[in-house]
């Protein structure tokens, strides 16, 4: 078992932040120690008992000097921290002009990022080391908060207005991305990872369409697989019926029971409807959670073709083993 006490320092703010943090900690320890020592000393000195009579000659019940110095010292120390903290805050709130801008959209319960060249990612954020990055964020529903502990930055993502935050990653690696504002059932799972890449690697990643955008396979089932991955369908639909959503394995031809009591055998039309208007029929045991996607008809056919292969021992790859390189990108 190990007891980590400090998150990694991975952005321009981290060192500066930790310095102030530990200075306040020192102050806290100092004052707590002072108060403890004072109390302990007085208790020992003036503990009642031993039959010794109390001596109250020349009592002291107030002392303006003590009052003023104690509050004066507190005030001065407080002001030092205030000014220091405010300086850091000002820096955190003002992105440099040359910062690279990335747009972030928060919605229950995923993060969606758009880079300037059109690369999109979900629950992940790739950023280059050494370049200031500015996030311009907005929420599609409730308030979220974009939080990267290792960068010591956080800012809320609010519906109806843009908010901004910025940082310069200082070391490559994989860092936590959290939603730090309670936003509903899966608040704790709204997040993923931030990948800080060396600049060269980052531009390669970006050029490559975020590693994922490969040329579209001509075989519909494979194109569908790619769509399935790009749109993170598997974040809800897994191998087995999950908590969030039913499994799609062997869907076509299976009998589906719906919350309104009706039932039907799943066919292509049903899947098409499930994509375009998922709330039309809600599978029993689940709630409306899936958003409507406006795929083109072509994409829908590709997705259906892929879904047909799900759960079958052969799989879509059987058709073309050469095309098995899959996007990386760890998801939770």
């Amino acid at each position, binding site marked *: 078992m190990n007891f980590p006490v400090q998150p990694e320092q991975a952005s321009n703010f981290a060192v500066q932040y930790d310095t102030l943090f530990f200075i306040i900690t020192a102050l806290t320890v100092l004052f*707590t120690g002072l108060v403890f020592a004072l109390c302990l000393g007085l208790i020992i000195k003036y503990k009642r008992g031993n039959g010794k009579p109390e001596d109250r000659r020349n009592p002291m019940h107030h002392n303006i000097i003590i009052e003023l110095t104690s509050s004066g010292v507190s005030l001065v120390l407080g002001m030092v921290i205030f000014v220091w903290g405010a300086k*850091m805050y000002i820096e955190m709130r003002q992105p440099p002009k040359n910062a690279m801008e990335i747009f972030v959209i928060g919605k229950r319960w995923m993060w969606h990022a758009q880079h300037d060249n059109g690369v999109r990612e979900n629950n992940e954020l790739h950023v280059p080391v050494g370049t200031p990055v500015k996030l311009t964020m907005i929420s599609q529903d409730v308030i979220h908060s974009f939080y990267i502990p290792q960068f010591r930055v956080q800012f809320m993502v609010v*519906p109806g207005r843009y908010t901004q935050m910025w940082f310069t990653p200082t070391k490559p690696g994989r860092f936590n991305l959290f939603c730090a504002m309670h936003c509903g059932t899966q608040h704790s799972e709204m997040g993923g990872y931030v990948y800080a890449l060396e600049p060269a690697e980052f531009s390669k990643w970006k050029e490559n369409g975020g590693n994922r955008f490969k040329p579209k396979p001509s075989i519909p089932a494979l194109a569908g697989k790619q769509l399935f991955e790009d749109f993170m369908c598997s974040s809800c639909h897994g191998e087995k019926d999950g908590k969030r959503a039913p499994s799609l394995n062997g869907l076509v031809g299976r009998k589906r029971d719906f919350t309104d009591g009706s039932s039907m055998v799943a066919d292509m039309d049903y899947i098409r409807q499930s994509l375009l208007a998922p709330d039309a029929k809600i599978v029993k045991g689940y709630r409306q959670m899936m958003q409507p996607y406006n795929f083109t008809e072509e994409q829908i056919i590709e997705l259906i073709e892929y879904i047909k292969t799900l759960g079958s021992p052969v799989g879509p790859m059987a058709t073309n083993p050469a095309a098995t390189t899959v996007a990386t990108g760890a998801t939770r």
Partner: protein
Amino acid sequence: MSGIPPTEHVETEEKNYLQEGHTIASWLLTKDHKRIAVLYLISVSFFFFIGSIAAMLIRLELTSPRGTLITSETYNKAFTAHGVVMIFFFLIVAIPAVFGNFLIPLMIGARDLAFPRLNLLSWYFYMAGGMMFLVAMMTGGVDTGWTFYTPMSSIYSNGQVTLTLVAAFITGFSSIFTGINFIATIHKMRAPGMTWWRLPLYVWSHYATSVIIILGTPVIAITLLLVVFERVAKIGIFSPELGGDPVLFQHMFWFYSHPAVYIMVLPGMGVISELMGCFSRNKVFGYQFVAMSSMGIAALGFVVWGHHMFVSSQSMYQGIVFSFLSFLVAIPSAIKVFNWSLTMYKGSVWLASPMIYALGFIGLFTVGGLTGLYLASAGTDVHVTGTYFVVAHFHYVMVGGTLLAFLGALHFWWPKMFGRMYPEGVAKWNAMLVFVGFNLTFLPQFVVGYLGMPRRYHYYYFAPEFQVYHVMSTLGASVLAVSLLVPGAYLTWSLKNGPKAPANPWGAKGLEWEAAASPPIKHNFAGIPVVMGDVYDYDAEAEELAYRGLPPREESK
């Protein structure tokens, strides 16, 4: 403080307030402030129990990174129920409505509060609100967190948000009634000779609390009502789709809820002042500073609400101003801490169980308050806001502070309220156990918060390094649970079996001890006392004893 009639007259043959009628109606329709206080004591204990069960559920679930005891939905409902119950139905009410109700008339030498009917009505409002919340919990629960942030609460959350908000709204009125009652009583009903500078600090702190209550509570009431309207009738004040601004809700919410944290802690501070005075056998050091610092906290408390919103799209300048003001509000608290400690100087310290709670309060409140500085400094708040660091901060001030003060008050005034003593030995050891259990529970949360564990998180399997601290915390919570069940047991036991308490078992100064019996009679005093001496006048007696070369008077037993 010397009162007339003198102490010998205290032990009257008159029936005490507990003996005035034993029917249920005689309790439920009583206008006696002492009986209402007892009603409140029973009800807040009940709600504390409910809130604690939710707390234990949270703690058990968090021992594993992917807890399987409950679903995420239930988890969210659990911490919301925990927060709402602990804040609205326990902490805000606990000290003012129980001990404030019981003691203010006794301390200032009045027969009752100014508006006894209003007082009873406030208990009914409180119970109505509480019951509504219980119904809400049982018929679906709420998952918004105790802060009810819009648009989550007004549009997205399903569950009994409306009922909960209405419950909080009603309970708010109970608070307002109590506040109005205290203000009128303290202003107008002091006994002859009870000048403002002779008021016990406990009364001062309740005065400050009442001012906050009447200025702040209406704001939260309207705010919650607007959320209800938005939710039920889809009229838009806070939701962006309807032209509103969700951040306005935060401003309005914290405009009340920051002062509310001082509603929670000021009465506790009043208790500590009394305890430090009595058990040091000394006048509270810097009496006037301590009294005025309560008023200072009340005033400054109203202008710092924005420190809860450093990262929620208020402008940078707002953030800086609020940060600055938050540091100012720390000064009156600092004054209190130092003056309490110095009260022991040249005193005669008696480490009885209430005193141990008081010392615990001083230590834990200091830590809790100082960690508030990390949050008050805008730059350092950015990383830890919304994490367990904040959770640890507020448990230090609310549990380590106010809950300990509540327990101290319970032990100190128990003989006065019920006329019985409890086993002091057990109480003393238990008080230390509370201290240990508390630190074990919440100290690790500072670390895990700094590491980045967000609050209101059901799962943390993506950061398993947090687990060790969560396990420690749950362990501590179990110790804490035991140490809180024990007083429940021995205090209940003492009601029937404890030795009878004398009028002034602690040898304390103050009208409630010197001029009233234990338990007091219905109208508190045989005749209205006249106050002639100074407040906390322990010196006179001590000097006399010292002069005669006698040991200090042996109190109790």
